[in-house]
């Protein structure tokens, strides 16, 4: 193309996407983006996946991004298209998922006139995105789109909105390709300060009760970061725990893995966090689900925090050593510095620490009681455990998405993730309805892989329309519903914290999920009791089509362990036996904590 050759704005959009290596976008058409849809129609390089709701478009792009490490791309129209996308954008913001969302807009001369399907998209999405743009000049469009991709994937990743007025899409201008100069103002630090690394290694070498606490930042830094994390943990002999976002960053089958930490984390992970003397946090953000009551969080430890986002450091928890940088580069530097430092670690103290951890492990905090009779009620934990075991036997590469609630926590506890990018769940925002559209994105990215949405009967109804997307693209996603006829986590909190008053948490008037599946051209299966469970799982995996498996589980099972909001790690409820009798105060639950979510 000669520099003076012009393209329409819509053509520039597709050209920029192509130059960014985009091969699939998730979207829904409408008046303001018709020029882009017209241009899409006339090309084959970029595949468009038609979702059934704009929120699902963003979640699908998130599923695509998380399972591939690439930027997910969304295309929606103005007004309601953009406002529907907002939940997905905030979800991506909270979980640091790189997404570029193109929104249509009314023509520039109508902006501010309350035109049909007009919304102040940049205004509404300003706190919902990492950054956003309103393009007013077609000649700036190429540059802005490339900048949007750069911002979405650089530093701490996140969602970026580019708002595109219709006249800019129709008008003709010169396409500016990939920029050759660095961004004027946004240049996140990725290489750690060697002095901070040296300080961290000194602390770690002198540790007697160390712990490595790794989060989603390790996943976002790419598979190499997970490999380096494993290398570092093996090199040091330290115990390692992962956050909900970090599951898969360290192999779950490794003897040095303590499981997930936090509100529904394992006994050993949380007590090790509470009792450690040196904590190394890599790519996690001391979220309230992890810390519990802040003033009692790991009270006797020196804390090292490595994060690519300087604003995450010293936000909730004051740390003793701050390292700003990309998780992979931080880990590589820590490994090199650890090897170079002549100080011998205190192996005696570490052995004693492991002995203590093994005692905690022996509590077997995830145990549950499954009656073995074929007509026994299925325990939800057992359903996931069997699903995991049967899937593992197949040896297939598997991606797990979830909705939000009890089933999500049980999935996090019972699925053993050995590799990064296989676990797609809404952590920060906690968006019910995330799992099915995220599974769409993961299955589009990995057509040969097994993609399972572990769901609850309440959450799945929040984006159930995406069953239609599965049918259109013949996506063999498996929806595994733990159906307890309750918004289980709400019910659990009402039981433990609100005197058993189950206000509005019963899933009344549920559809027949088997018939629902069939009406969406999918296969519907149901397991009513233990005797059906394995057969349903086998059949679900054998069918090369979308499946809804309705697993009828114990209606009153609670998710343990649990640290009630506002309680400390050592005030964990391990099981029903720790539960206060009705009317009595639950230990660890305070007035102060009741205010918390």
């Amino acid at each position: 193309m000669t520099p003076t050759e012009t393209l329409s704005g819509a053509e520039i959009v597709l050209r920029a996407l192509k130059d960014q290596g985009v091969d699939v976008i998730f979207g829904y058409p409408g008046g303001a983006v018709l020029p882009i849809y017209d241009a899409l129609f006339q090309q084959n390089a970029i595949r468009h996946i038609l979702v059934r709701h704009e929120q699902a478009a963003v979640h699908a792009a998130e599923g695509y991004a998380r399972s591939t490490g690439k930027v997910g791309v969304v295309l929606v129209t103005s007004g309601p298209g953009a406002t529907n996308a907002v939940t997905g954008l905030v979800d991506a913001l909270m979980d640091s998922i790189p997404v570029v969302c193109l929104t249509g807009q009314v023509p520039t001369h109508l902006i501010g006139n309350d035109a049909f399907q007009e919304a102040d998209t940049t205004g509404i999405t300003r706190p919902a995105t990492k950054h956003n743009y309103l393009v007013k000049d077609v000649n700036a469009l190429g540059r802005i789109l490339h900048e949007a991709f750069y911002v979405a994937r650089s530093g701490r990743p996140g969602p970026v909105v580019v708002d595109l007025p219709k006249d800019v899409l129709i008008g003709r201008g010169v396409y500016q390709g990939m920029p050759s100069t660095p961004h004027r103002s946004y240049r996140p630090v990725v290489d750690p300060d060697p002095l901070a690394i040296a300080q961290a290694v000194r602390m770690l070498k002198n540790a007697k009760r160390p712990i490595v606490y790794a989060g989603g930042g390790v996943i976002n830094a790419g598979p190499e970061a997970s490999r380096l994390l494993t290398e570092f943990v093996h090199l040091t002999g330290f115990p390692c725990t992962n956050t909900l976002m970090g599951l898969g960053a360290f192999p779950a089958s490794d003897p040095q893995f303590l499981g997930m930490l936090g509100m529904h984390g394992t006994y050993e992970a949380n007590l090790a966090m509470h009792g450690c003397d040196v904590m190394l946090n890599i790519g996690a953000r001391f979220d309230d689900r992890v810390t519990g009551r802040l003033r009692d969080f790991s009270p006797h430890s020196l804390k090292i925090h490595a994060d690519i986002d300087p604003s995450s450091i010293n936000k909730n928890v004051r740390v003793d050593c701050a390292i700003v940088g990309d998780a992979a580069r931080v880990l590589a530097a820590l490994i090199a510095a650890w090897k170079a430092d002549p100080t011998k670690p205190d192996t005696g103290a570490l052995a004693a620490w492991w002995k203590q951890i093994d005692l905690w492990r022996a509590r077997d905090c995830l145990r549950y009681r499954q009656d073995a009779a074929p007509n026994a009620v299925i325990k939800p934990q057992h359903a996931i455990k069997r699903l995991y075991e049967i899937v593992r036997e197949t040896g297939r590469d598997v991606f797990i998405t979830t909705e939000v609630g009890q089933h999500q926590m049980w999935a996090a506890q019972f699925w053993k993730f050995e590799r990064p990018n296989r676990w797609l769940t809404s952590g920060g925002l906690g968006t019910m309805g995330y799992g099915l559209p995220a599974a769409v994105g993961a299955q589009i990215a990995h057509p040969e892989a097994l993609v399972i949405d572990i769901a609850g009967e309440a959450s799945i109804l929040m984006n159930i329309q995406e069953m239609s997307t599965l049918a259109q693209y013949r996506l063999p996603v498996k929806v595994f519903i733990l159906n307890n006829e309750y918004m289980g986590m709400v019910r659990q909190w009402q039981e433990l914290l609100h005197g058993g008053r189950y206000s509005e948490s019963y899933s009344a008037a549920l559809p027949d999920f088997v018939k629902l599946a069939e009406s969406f051209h999918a296969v519907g299966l149901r397991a009513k009791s233990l005797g059906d469970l394995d057969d349903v799982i086998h059949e679900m995996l054998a069918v090369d089509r979308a499946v809804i498996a309705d697993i009828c589980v114990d209606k009153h099972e609670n998710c343990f362990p649990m640290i009630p909001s506002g309680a400390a790690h050592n005030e964990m409820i391990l099981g029903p036996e720790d539960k206060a009798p009705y009317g009595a105060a639950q230990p660890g639950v305070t007035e102060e904590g009741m205010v918390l979510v």
Partner: protein
Amino acid sequence: MLKALSPAHDTSTRQAVIAVLVENEAGVLARVIGLFSGRGYNIDSLTVAPVDEEKQLSRITIVTSGTAMVIEQIKAQLDRLVPVHKVADLTTEGPHIARELALIKVAGTGEKRVEALRIADAFRARVVDATTESFVFEMTGATDKLDAFVALMRPLGLVEVSRTGIVAMARGPKGIYG
């Protein structure tokens, strides 16, 4: 290893004067203000104007208050906004000059009018508008000087005050990039 007394337990608040150099583009001020309201930070005053037409840069001066941990957060949050070039905490980075401009309207006749003019002279306020029964004074200075002047004008017929909020700059030869 001894652990330093954690500033997390330091609940005393301080005022901070923060200078922010930003791209002069649409929405940048909304991003800064939205960050403060969205995260519950205080804005005591805020001024903004373009300072470099060629490079299209604007400078925002924010006066805020909070605990040491909150001020550190504010700076980090500002710094990660995409159009932000530089954030400087003038309060902690050495001595700085902070100035404010005010327009002060005083109405009155007779002895009060003479007294207002005499005090204005002592404070080096300039008369920028006058009628037979009013003055508008223009005054530049540190915030407490302006406060003192306004307080003195109150019994002398103060009608209204318009103030810019603080603009500030570090003393010495170095610029904001240090």
